């Protein structure tokens, strides 16, 4: 329980707004970020039932442009980016030659020969170095820009998100489908409006100039007052994404986890000729992975957390990669990496919760799916 904050931490353009609003600030991936405002449960419920606002400006943005931009994106990411229209985005994996994760990414097609990759805050430096080294090795007409400092990123999420954002823009938000984006003004600020998110709810992520971020934030708070919108911190972001069964890079998967082991085989464009790590992934697909990430629910009163061992015959056979008590479903849930023989839905898992063996059960994904 320490409350000191090293001064060298990075601050988003909304840092002063968070502090002035009384958010509890913590260090996250080298950034000083809000972990909670009114409390994780309150924020989580607001997003599930009304709306919540998140500062995710710590995420990294890397732009890829040039005549060979598509073939380069096809090389460094697993999904088939040739299927993207201009104005469309896709979830993908940035892979190592072993078919494991450098990071998970969102790939946006901004223009014919111009792509934007959104990477996790903790992986910006690693992803940037990796992508640059791949561009140098591959050659071709590709220009790269680490544009992370050029964007603030604000997420408005929840069933009321579209109604709130629509008050601030003339762009027809109903015309933006899930995983598509448009450009236009929000609160008189130039924005890229993306119908994406990390909560399992409908909503938008708004890329705006850093200098205008606080204006957009305040306008969204004001527009959402009638539905009691909540500013939200990283705590609720984590419980919301877990309930929606979305993976957290660095926690659920990393450089030691293949895309298949993470249960993200649907991110792989198998019909592509080549991409980084395709040979080991094709081999693993043919032979079947020996372990896989599963969703579990505790069947006795305990909360399994990141790093707790999954036991079999008295020895660790797997590990919990994420786990919490979720505010909406009111269950203790999580992800665990386990041997294939324990991956079937209904399989009992025995998890070592600080020395006590506690029962859990493998369940179908997702834990939570929003009503449509």
């Amino acid at each position, binding site marked *: *329980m320490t*409350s000191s904050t090293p001064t060298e931490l990075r601050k988003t353009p909304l840092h002063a707004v968070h502090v002035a609003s009384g958010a*509890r600030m913590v260090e996250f991936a080298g950034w000083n970020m809000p*972990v*909670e405002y009114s*409390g*994780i*449960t309150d924020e989580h419920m607001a997003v599930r039932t009304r709306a919540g606002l998140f500062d995710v400006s710590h995420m990294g943005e890397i732009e890829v442009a040039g005549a060979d931009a598509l073939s380069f994106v096809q090389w460094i990411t697993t999904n088939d980016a040739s299927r993207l229209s201009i104005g469309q985005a896709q979830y993908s994996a940035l892979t190592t030659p072993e078919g494991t994760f450098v990071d998970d990414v969102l790939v946006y097609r901004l223009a014919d020969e111009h792509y934007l990759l959104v990477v996790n805050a903790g992986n910006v430096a690693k992803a940037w170095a990796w992508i640059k080294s791949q561009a140098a090795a591959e050659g071709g007409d590709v220009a790269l820009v680490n544009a992370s400092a050029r964007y603030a990123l604000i997420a408005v999420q929840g069933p009321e998100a579209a109604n709130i954002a629509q008050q601030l823009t003339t762009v027809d938000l109903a015309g933006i489908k899930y995983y598509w984006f448009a450009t236009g003004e929000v609160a008189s600020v130039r924005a890229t409006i993306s119908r994406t998110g990390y909560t399992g709810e409908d909503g938008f992520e708004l890329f705006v100039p850093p200098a205008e971020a606080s204006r957009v934030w305040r306008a969204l708070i004001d527009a959402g007052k009638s539905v009691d919108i909540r500013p939200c911190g990283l*705590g609720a972001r*984590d*419980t919301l994404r877990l309930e929606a069964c979305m993976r957290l890079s660095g926690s659920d998967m990393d450089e030691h986890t293949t895309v298949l082991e993470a249960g993200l085989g649907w991110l792989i464009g198998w019909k592509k000729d080549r991409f980084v790590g395709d040979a080991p992934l094709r081999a693993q697909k043919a032979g079947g992975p020996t372990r896989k990430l599963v969703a579990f629910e505790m069947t006795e*009163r*305990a*909360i399994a*957390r990141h790093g707790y061992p999954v036991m079999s015959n008295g020895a660790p056979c797997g590990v919990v990669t994420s786990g*919490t*008590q979720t*505010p909406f479903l009111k269950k203790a849930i999580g992800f665990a990496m386990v041997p294939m023989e324990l991956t079937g839905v209904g399989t009992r898992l025995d998890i070592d919760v*600080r020395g006590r063996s506690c029962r859990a059960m493998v369940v179908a994904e997702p834990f939570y799916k929003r009503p449509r």
Partner: protein
Amino acid sequence: MFPTDLKYTKDHEWLRQDGGEVLVGITDFAQRQLGDVVFVELPEIGRTLKQGESFGTIESVKAVSELYSPVSGEIVAVNRQLDTHPEAVNKTPHETWMIRLKPSAPDESVSLLDASAYGALVQ
């Protein structure tokens, strides 16, 4: 801010004298640090604790923390209401006790902090 009729530990527990026995809980500062409490794991009645010994755990949505006994003694009661209403720790931290102890070394409470010393510690 912190009630003057309580004694405090550096680990953020409080102790309230109640006749010849004492009640133990965690402070408002501790519950704020934890966030929304979802689970309090309490010990068996009859167990004997040493001063500073862990008697259970408290879990919030995002973290788990140990609970430490401010003094030595025998556990004579536990607050079973926390099984169904752990959020009481957030709502009324200084009224929500966790265990009732019969102290075996009454002198130990002298080593605890008073409200002003504890308040200064968490400033």
